[in-house]
């Protein structure tokens, strides 16, 4: 059901990513399912390849609608959400998740100055201000995906 990710892909289609292991908490991480939502294919590729390289299960969504579909079919434990996207933006995704009763934590991922404010607005668990470094990304995902994994 989940397609295996193999190296660079073009475009922003939803893709499944197989945990690659390697890190110390491989087992724990492998239980985390991270959904990355961003309309920029380059960001999508980079973040998914890093997270899968670090042992997380990852799916990528190039837009709001794909994100909602994956939310229902793949049941992620954490959503990394870009806010400014065409057609369906981050706010709309967050609202749809709330209305659907989803308790999956969201991490806002944006280049805007107002990353923190936007995160508060939609009741997100945390935020990543672009440009973020590798450590920030991993720390943030680690912190928010771990304890809620059981849900």
């Amino acid at each position, binding site marked *: 059901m989940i397609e295996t990710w193999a190296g660079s892909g073009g475009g*922003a289609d939803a893709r499944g990513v197989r945990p690659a292991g390697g890190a110390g908490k491989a087992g724990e991480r492998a239980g985390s399912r991270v959904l990355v939502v961003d309309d*920029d294919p*380059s960001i999508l590729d*980079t*973040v998914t*390849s890093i997270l899968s390289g670090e042992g997380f299960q990852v799916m990528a969504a190039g837009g709001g609608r794909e994100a909602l579909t994956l939310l229902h079919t793949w049941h992620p434990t954490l959503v990394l959400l870009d806010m400014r996207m*065409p057609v369906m933006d981050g706010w709309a995704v967050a609202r749809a998740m709330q209305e659907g009763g989803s308790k999956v934590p969201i991490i806002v991922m944006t280049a805007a100055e107002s990353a923190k404010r936007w995160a508060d607005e939609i009741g997100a668990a945390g935020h990543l201000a*672009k*440009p*973020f470094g590798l450590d920030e990304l991993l720390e943030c995902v680690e912190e928010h995906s771990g304890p809620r994994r059981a849900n």
Partner: protein
Amino acid sequence: MTALELITLLSQAIYVVIFLFVGVRYLRAPTPAHLDMTVFFGILAFVVVEQRIATALGIVPPEWFTDTVIAAVIALPYILLRLVDDFTAVPRGVKRGAELLLIASIASAYVLPGPTLPPLYVLLIVGYIAGLSFYCGFRFFRAGLRAQGVTKRRMQAISLGTVLFALDILAAGIGGQMSEPWKTLLAAIGQVLGLAAAVSWFLGFAPPPILRRAWQAPALRQFLARAANLPRLPTTRDIVSELERGAAAATGSEARIGVWDDDILKIRFWPPSGEPTDVEPGRYFSGRAFEQQKTLFSAQPARDDPEAADTYRSANVGAIIATPITAGEKRLGVLVLYAVRPPIFAVSDAELSQLLADQAAVVLESRALIDHAARVRAREEATRLKEDFLSAAAHDLKTPLTTVVAQAQFLERKATRDPSAPSDLPGLQRIVREAQRLSALVTDLLDAARMEQGRLTSDREPVDLGALVSAVASRQRAGAHTVEVDVKGAVVGNYDGRRIEQLLENLIENANKYSPNATPVSVGVWQQDGEARIAVQDRGIGIPASDLPRIFERFSRASNVDDRRFHGMGLGLYICRGIVEEHGGRIWAESEIGKGSTFHVALPLSEERRLN
């Protein structure tokens, strides 16, 4: 008492009342016009009073006295002519001719013997008086045509009175020579005409303040009603000319408004057509009224301001009221009312001028506030644009930067963990691609910033556009679209070659970017109407008509562009426009949704090319 006697008594009483009225005016303001009016009505009053007294007492006056009365009556039309000259201009020749005839008529009145004059002589005198009166009536009528508002009404009344007077003289003169019943009938008609003439003159020469205000009221009301809308006119000049029109109509004179210009420290007057006139404070009546901040009146501007005497004479200005236009402490300008002759103005006109100046101040100050608000809005708009720019630039720069930083750190970590692991080629490619994207963005941003300062292009040299287009087209990446080049002869101009190359690259890349694969892009270069022309045509997605007007603006992208597929900040075409415009050329686009777009560029040719 018969009706005729009553009319006679009434008209005679009116002559006496008018005489007293204008006499008092003359004593208050001894102007030439008031003197002439006093003499004119004095003669009329004297003649009727003298006859009444003589009849009542049964005295037969001596012949010299009768001759003097006749001479005075003969002088009436001449004084009328002087009054015409008091209100408007009378040709010098007419004045001299009238004086000669006057002297001849009076002399003959004394010379001819007897209490009754020969009929032919009487007819001649009647002809002289009626003729000159008709002429005066005509002059007042003409003055009325040129005037407006209260002055028009006054000139019409005087003109009517003068014509009625001429008819009165004719009726009395001819009637005197006829037998009954014509004699009595014409005398009766003459009395009615005399009464009507007296009333008309009274209203025209010396309108009571109430009547004057009533005549001014419609124009003034219209002016005040329109004033509310004036501040919204496109330019201050439009506002000023509307204010001038309103003030002229309300006062029945010419009106000019000078607006203080803080930059040149002068009062600027805009004539209805042509170049403006600037007046220094303290010069002319306008400058003096502005400097002293009080209303100035002059009935003899040429004498009161000798320095500018010629100006006033050549402009036929016989009277001036200058009133400063001031809003609180702020000196905005000056309202100047001109008349050909002083009697056009009344004392109350100074107050009216003040009222008009105050209204003008309100209008001009409102305008200043509107302008100020517009400037504030423009500043806010500029700030907002800058903020838009910053946020767009920040967003577009941070996105590739995220990939470059995070991806590079990830590669570094992998290499540290396992130096012998195979290199992550996709990761490296992502870094390279995003670094290039960053670099292009930074270049575009810097170009846009240079363009704002108008220094996008530098040294010009002869450039062959055809050769340049071919070179750029052949450099297009393999596997991209075919670029068909159609060059008609050498098209050479003096351009910044590097920037024109950038322009061509941008346009061709754009055409490729928004075209489906395998559809060719064609570029044409030719000369037309003394211009170098370039057209870049694609068969791509096209641009919606509603977006066409703004695609050359910064941060503007067509609404049918999918941001995910096509990166860009919307600066490319903005920079293209900058390059073309700095070369003195034009750029425009034609497009049809689904069929493709054509971008046209027209650039000036070098001099020798144009001559060929």
